[in-house]
């Protein structure tokens, strides 16, 4: 073959999108796998809780868990998800930043409520299996939420640096998906830790 270029034209050449592709990009698909594996983690975590709860000899709960902090917490999480949805629907950078900042503040308030709740508990992670489960589940959820807060902060910084427009905004949709997952996991944790005890 010689070194000269030979152009071979296919039947119908058509333009293809290049690079940051939103829902067609690999970053988005990668986040789906992250969410699947992390959702599995919460599945096993809640399975472990319920397994120990069902199998225990005697009383599982030392006291009925109060929703004083948890209910406002989970409502804040749901509100943060709505803020993300509102912020990421439009191409406007101001609205994006407002939505993500609101979500960030809701998330931070959730962290504060969680710490307050931990502080006021009559039992510790060492008291019994219920105490161990309660603290480890809420702590693992909190760790995921803190990662989410860092990601929200990064999106805010990148938005202020002018990195996003209506075509290039992969981090926005990827971080939004992660945040919705963290909220969903928080809701699942709420149901198992605070609602199911009332069902038996």
């Amino acid at each position, binding site marked *: 073959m010689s070194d000269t270029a030979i152009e071979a034209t296919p039947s119908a050449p058509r333009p293809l999108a290049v690079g940051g592709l939103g829902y067609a990009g690999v970053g988005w698909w990668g986040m789906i*796998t992250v969410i699947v594996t992390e959702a599995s983690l919460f599945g096993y975590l809640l399975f472990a809780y319920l*397994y120990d709860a069902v199998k225990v000899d005697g009383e599982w709960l030392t006291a009925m868990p109060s929703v004083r902090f948890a209910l406002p917490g989970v409502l804040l999480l749901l509100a943060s998800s709505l803020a993300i949805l509102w912020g990421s629907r439009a191409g406007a950078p101001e609205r994006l930043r407002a939505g993500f900042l609101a979500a960030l503040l809701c998330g931070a308030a959730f962290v504060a409520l969680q710490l307050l709740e931990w502080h006021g508990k009559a039992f510790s992670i060492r008291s019994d299996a219920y105490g*161990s489960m309660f603290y480890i589940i809420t702590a693992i959820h909190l760790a995921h939420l803190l990662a989410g807060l860092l990601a929200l902060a990064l999106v805010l910084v990148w938005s202020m640096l002018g990195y996003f427009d209506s075509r290039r905004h992969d981090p926005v949709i990827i971080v939004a998906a992660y945040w919705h997952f963290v909220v969903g996991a928080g809701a699942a944790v709420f149901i198992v830790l605070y609602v199911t005890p009332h069902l038996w």
Partner: protein
Amino acid sequence: MEDIEFERIPRYVSATAAYRRGLGVIWETPPGIGGWLSSVDHKKIGICYIVTAFAFLILGGIEALVMRLQLIGPDRHLLTPEQYDQLFSTHGMTMIFLYAMPVLSGFSNYLWPLMLGSRDMAFPRLNALSYWIYVAAGLFMYAGFAIGVGPNDGWFNYVPYASRPYNPGMNIDFYALGMIYLGISTTVGAANFLVTVMRTRAPGMSVNRMPIMVWGTLTASAANILVVPAVSLAFFLLWMDRQFGTHFFDVSAGGQPLLWQHLFWMFGHPWVYAVVLPAMGMVSDALPIFCRRPLVGYTPVALSTVATMILGFGVWVHHMFATGLPNLALSFFSGASIIITVPSAVAVFAWTATIWLGRPVITTAFLFFSSMIVLFVIGGVSGFMTASVPVDWQLTQTYFVVAHLHYVLIGINLFPVVGAIYVWFPKMTSRLLDERLGQWNFWTMFIGFKLAFLPMHLTGLRGMPRRIYTFPDHMGWNILNLVSTVGAFVLAAGVLLLLVNVIQSLRSGRLAGANPWDGATLEWSVPSPPPSYNFAVIPTVVSRHPLWEDRLQESADRSTAIEGMLLDHGRETLATTLLDGDADAILKMPGESYAPLLLTVGLSGFFVGLLLHQWWLAAFGGAVATASIVGWLWPERALAQIAQPRHV
């Protein structure tokens, strides 16, 4: 900085030397140690994976030989009970976690983009990360063994013996944290495989044209991201119990020891399939080359691969038949374990039919693949036997189970892997392995394996328990154990012959050319070793056997790796649609990066800090890791991740 356009009509060209030179400049990893440490080339990473996995295989093999010396006859005391415990636990940990899965990841890393007609994996830097973490976690898990506190509770590490009161040393902590660390490698690797297969196949490679090995690794990867969290969580909870006085598994405070077994085997059994399905895929792809015909029953084999995995999620309790679970649970899991033989057997019939209907060429690789069928059937039958609850009650905890699991793991992992080395070594190195030495290699391994493990069925039926460090005379086990020990050394000699062959052939093996076996899939269309960019133009695929189309005459269409999209505006490859493999978008691919290595260093500091309770080190390592991730994910203009500056 050059602007990246939003879309462009790719240039369709015929591959020429000039284009190849240009692509070489774009894709070549810089020479030297810096290039090696920052490389994201899937071929380099794949070979590193395979070499590292073989190093662990040799370590695990030496451990096995020491144990066999102890068991060569009755009342031997070469090892103390504690040393023996650490040896069998480390042997299991090494072979199952540090050899069996990583070696398959190595082959898949190397072969996938070449088979799929792409220029790299979907996430090249993530690929480097999964390798570095694998190495770091492997060293971490071996560090305890090296200083005399290796894991000592078997590879499945049951509580309460693994709990602090019964096991106060650091043994289990090394294992627990190391497994969590290794889990990160497995998970990111699996995520990478999944997205790669979904997004970066060559145009025209619809799902029904993917090589079976791709199906195997795809299935295993899907399983991994679903089940690895179970074992990571189990080890994390155990570590908490041991170090912080929690009570997850402590029955005196409301915990459940059986929770460990559930979490472990929910992971463990799917994992067993994950370490064999890709290897079965290699046989499905490579055995037909030596039978000179396509695989019989492509569709049933592909579907049964997936079906085996799905059923594999529902059989974990067959490891727990003797733990006093209710009869209903035992019946269900026994039934599921028996049914799973149906999809497993599909591949066996397909391979047998392929040999039967083909014109077999008896190469070393053919011998390894065809003998694998025999070993698979024997290992499958012994597994089928123990799927029955009453038989399991009789045989559990005996050498029968040891025989079964070695037939399965050596038979369906090591034998296909060695066969695969004979097949793809020429692609990786441009040189063929020596066939004469190869025949010696095969027969030594095969006879050694049979001598070592066939008698173990009988040893188990005669009641010898597993994991005992020595045994008394007059139990009727002496001769059987002697034969097993002799066989183990013959098997080891066989593996040694493989290494000799590899080292010799690297220097003076016959040159292979692009397609020494006349294979049918895309990796055989590129030179050996393949260039850094894999394909000069993105290939177009119109059938399952792109290089056999002239012979098979299935249709008038022809696949081509000569004419196609050039994609040379920096590192680029093509994204295609999920099912049909239609051209969809142009992906910008990252170049060399130190971020994966730096992240691994940070994580290693984090885990060492946790192990030693040096919280400052854990915090510092965590901070380095976080900073690496932020730097890694920071949008880059060259990767088209940043909006264009507004042109006023």
